């Protein structure tokens, strides 16, 4: 990297790292340190190709997602997470069906949901972040993760089902759109060791 590239890269990191960190935090299930590591690795990779990248942000985002779903190599990361709620499910925290939740139970549900999201596999979480945080259509999710649309669909389906298992209080919620039409794709999904 020449001096100009160096300056451009530094500027990019300074301007965009906070926004990209949000994605990294979600992908890491709320583990801030893991998120910084993930983002740092993505930036280091981007620095290596800096002068050949047309859209740096899209490139870094893609690395973030792909890195996260192929994180077998980082088994040490699977340490205990700090979540706002004890892992045991809390009785009586149900959400009141399809839209009747008051503010406090909505907050409780979000806390439960975050705890459950943190316990999904990296791949499951990545698909949900792309679908529900980035609001991307299935085809774009498939392109970013380098898999088929069918895999995206089946992974979404299984991830939502897994969330319900992890937090039974979520059972009362109405089904998500993705749950209305079961997928026929049975591509293997990463199993959490």
């Amino acid at each position, binding site marked *: 990297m020449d001096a100009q590239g160096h300056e451009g890269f530094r500027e990019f990191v*300074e301007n965009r*790292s*906070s926004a990209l960190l949000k994605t990294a935090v979600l992908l890491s299930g709320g583990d801030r340190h893991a998120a910084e590591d993930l983002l740092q690795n993505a930036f280091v990779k981007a*620095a290596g190709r800096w002068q050949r990248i047309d859209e740096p942000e899209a490139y870094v985002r893609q690395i973030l997602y792909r890195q996260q779903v192929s994180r077998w*190599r980082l088994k040490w990361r699977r340490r205990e997470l700090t979540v706002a709620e004890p892992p045991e499910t809390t009785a009586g925290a149900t959400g009141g069906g399809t839209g009747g939740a008051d503010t406090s139970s909505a907050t409780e549900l979000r806390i439960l949901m975050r705890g459950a999201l943190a316990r999904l596999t990296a791949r499951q979480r990545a698909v949900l972040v792309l679908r529900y945080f980035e609001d991307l259509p299935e085809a774009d999710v498939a392109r970013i993760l380098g898999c088929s649309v069918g895999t995206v669909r089946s992974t979404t389906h299984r991830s939502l089902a897994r969330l319900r298992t992890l937090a039974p209080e979520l059972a009362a*919620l109405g*089904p998500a759109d993705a749950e209305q039409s079961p997928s026929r794709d049975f591509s293997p999904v990463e199993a959490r060791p």
Partner: protein
Amino acid sequence: MNMDQLVRDALHEQASEATATPPGFAGRVLAVRRRRRTRTLAGAAVAVTVAVAVGVAVPVLSGGKDEPRLASQMNRSDIIAHPDQTPPRDLIAAGDIAMAAYWTTSTVKETPDRGVYQRTYHLLDQETGTYVKTTKWSFIAVAPGMRTAAVLEKGLPAKRIGLLDLLTGEVERWITVDRAVAGVEFSPDGSKLVATTYSKNPDLRYRADYDSDGDGKKNDWETRFGQSDRTGFYVLDVDSGKGSWSEVTGHEEDLNARQDFAFSDDAKLVYSGLTTEPHMQYYDFEGKEVATPVNEKYLHWYVDARLSPDGKLAAGEFAGGAKTTASAINDPYTGRRLHKIPGQQLLAWADNKRLVAWDIASGTNEFHQRLVLVTIGSKKTVPLSGFLKGNDGAAGRWEPIFAER
């Protein structure tokens, strides 16, 4: 509310709580990149010869698949400072180096007239990232990468050198030696050890027959000056534990009681400090006196920082005045002063532009020091630790050991 909405809300809420990246994140990324490139290059060059050693001694190559992670690697922040801690409890690091351990000292009386100057180490626990006291060892050196330390047991000089795994706290292997050693030091790449042999414990202290510190009491301990029990050195291959011993004689009157050998920058020679001119003497691995390498002519054995990682700058001596502190950065080949930077005593290079130093708070005395990060071309210093307490030799003082992280 349905699942879609709740997942969406929970993710957005979590994202909104994620605060900004730490200051200097770009610098940290670039530092990691530089380090990885250097390691990859170094690894490629030495892979054939040290492949077996990597797991045990020094992770020269970048991390493998299942390599356990060290606390010093998990927190990769460019600067990890604890200005409120003295002595430090939690990992201190800057740039490419971290404080691997620190030691405190005390003189333990053995007879009414003789004592032993004893080091108590606080070694970085690579599992927790904290400094943990250990009274097991009388001497410790830490390898670059901070995965392994070379340790000597109590009762110097010792007949074996332990290779301690800093992650597990267990000695992985012992290297036994015929001649007893009292000091060890790793080569800059961690593949070799130089172990200094002594016929007697070099840390013995004798009761002074006068009031050395002027406190009105004759209770001071001192070394026997001008008398050396040093016999020579081993250069040992860390991986195999094999090596040879070389006898070194001469300069006996110009040595401190403990005057350990250390490697030259290219690890092809060893040197010893001398208390008189020319202050340093180099030796080949057979113990023969050789000329000082041209790039080390202007180094001083008591300035720990020595050459910058790229070899272009030499850490120099104190360059301050009566009430100010400063240190010199010199051209290693000519000795010409290139920069004057803050810092009372330069301890280690954090990268090619920054060093860790002891420095005082302005207006205080020379013993009221703390670790700081100084940058060439800048008057600003970044405090890394709290201030030392007491005067030289008093309780509350500690000495850091740095290693490449």
